[in-house]
């Protein structure tokens, strides 16, 4: 009797021990997961908060461009200059999210104003919650990029509605050193990689001005009229948007070559963006239906209830089609 109870107790201890090991490994797994997301979170913040300069290569399809970047955070604001180093030196200046682009075109330099906060290496949003819904993260091998030790991470799409990414994060600075975007067949659609990188130890803003070519004419780009839209759709609603995509912007704009204003909605899953355009068909405009995919950008157009629906985005073709089909007209 005593002998049996001893065995029972020993057995119970063994089971308890196993349970503890199991629980510990589960929480270790959770911790490892958290740690990986922490690395990505740090990369998102470092891109805005550090001062650095270097040269990176942007490559998509047959296009390959070296770009010189100078980025500075002086405690109050964020300033960056990106110079495309080719025979038409395009200069992009950003101050916070405001962009001024100096774009040489023949004898002119066209000055364009834009808004955006996702320039490399700051391609990740600082809030990763939306990304966590649609992508999963797994650890890759340690590697070297631009002569610096880097940790590779896979950001895999959970479905076929968006592309997957591979990121290389600087072990020391926490900065993103390399980003690769892949389609579902694991083919590279776009890659951006630092060739050289160093931190800057100055708060001087001497460099934050364009190289002026006195032989050229500086002209402002024709500003497109955009009217903020309160977002109450008249006559249509959205049903069955691709999972993970949220509406981030809505406006009414003039589109080149169109006489009537077009309703423009922008959706994002945290990394990829899709634009939806809805416009009433008019006699002067030929209705367009079809789909196209060039590089990583997909296009889909259809006609419904005498409205032209157009969708464009850096997503697979199935996603733009689903966004177009999500527009439901009220009877």
């Amino acid at each position, binding site marked *: 009797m005593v002998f049996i109870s001893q065995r029972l107790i020993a057995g119970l201890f063994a089971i308890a021990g196993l349970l503890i090991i199991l629980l510990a490994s589960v929480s270790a797994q959770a911790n490892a997961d958290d740690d990986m997301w922490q690395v990505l979170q740090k990369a998102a913040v470092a891109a805005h908060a550090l001062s650095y300069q270097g040269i990176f290569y*942007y490559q*998509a399809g047959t*296009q390959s*461009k070296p*770009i010189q970047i100078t980025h500075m955070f002086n405690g109050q604001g964020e300033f960056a200059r*990106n110079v*495309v180093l080719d025979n*038409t030196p*395009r200069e*992009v200046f950003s*101050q*916070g*999210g*405001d*962009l*001024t*682009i100096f*774009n040489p*075109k023949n004898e002119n330099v066209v*000055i364009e*104003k*834009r*808004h*955006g906060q*996702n*320039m490399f290496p700051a*391609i990740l949003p600082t809030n990763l919650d939306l990304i966590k819904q649609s992508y999963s993260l797994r650890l890759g091998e340690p590697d070297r990029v631009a002569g610096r030790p880097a940790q590779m991470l896979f950001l895999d799409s959970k479905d076929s509605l968006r592309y997957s990414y591979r990121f290389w994060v600087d072990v020391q600075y926490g900065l993103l050193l390399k980003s690769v975007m892949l389609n579902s067949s694991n083919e590279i659609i*776009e890659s*951006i990689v630092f060739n050289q990188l160093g931190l800057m130890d100055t708060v001087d803003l001497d460099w*934050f001005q*364009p190289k*002026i070519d*006195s032989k050229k*004419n*500086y002209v*402002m780009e024709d*500003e*497109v*009229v*955009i*009217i903020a839209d309160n977002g109450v759709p008249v006559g249509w609603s959205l049903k069955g948007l691709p999972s993970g995509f949220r509406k981030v*912007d809505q*406006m009414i704009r003039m*589109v*080149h070559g169109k006489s009537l204003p*077009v309703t*423009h909605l*922008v959706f*994002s899953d945290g990394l990829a*963006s*899709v*634009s939806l*355009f809805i416009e009433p068909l008019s006699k002067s405009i030929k209705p*367009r239906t079809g789909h*196209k995919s*060039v590089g990583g*950008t997909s*296009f889909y157009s259809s006609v419904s209830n005498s409205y032209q629906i*157009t969708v*464009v985005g850096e997503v697979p073709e199935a996603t733009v089609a689903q966004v177009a089909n999500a527009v439901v007209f009220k009877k």
Partner: protein
Amino acid sequence: MNEQISALLDDEIALEDAAHLISAVLKSKDAAQVWSHYHLIGDTMRGNAVLSQHFKQNLMQKIEIEPTVLSPNAALVNQVAKVKDANRLPTSWAIAASFAAVMVIGFMLLNQETNRGNELAPTEVAQADINKDAAADDGIPAEYLNAHQASAPSASAYYIQTVSY
């Protein structure tokens, strides 16, 4: 000279020391152009801080909200404004029309030349036109791609030259 103008705009040269520079700007057409270019560049670079991003949107919205005054005189004013608008449009049309005219003349010249060279040319020209249309249809329509990239810029929008009209 250009450097001096730049220095003056940056307040690096005192106004009282710049009399010769200002008179030079007034005299020389080139210097006047540099002067206005520097102003434009400076305004756009600084403009970021001056006007909010949605300034124009908000302004347009406010104008939309403005009540319409229903009085005969106001209607008359509106009518005058409309006539003015109608008068304003043709300037852009004129450019389009002259461009179209150049295209037509160019096409005629092309036709003539190919006609001279070869009896079969007209069908060839027609064939080439069909091919051109097909090629234009190949890509993603630039007007929508540009509108998308203006509101949701991606890496390619920053670094690769966008299509111009």
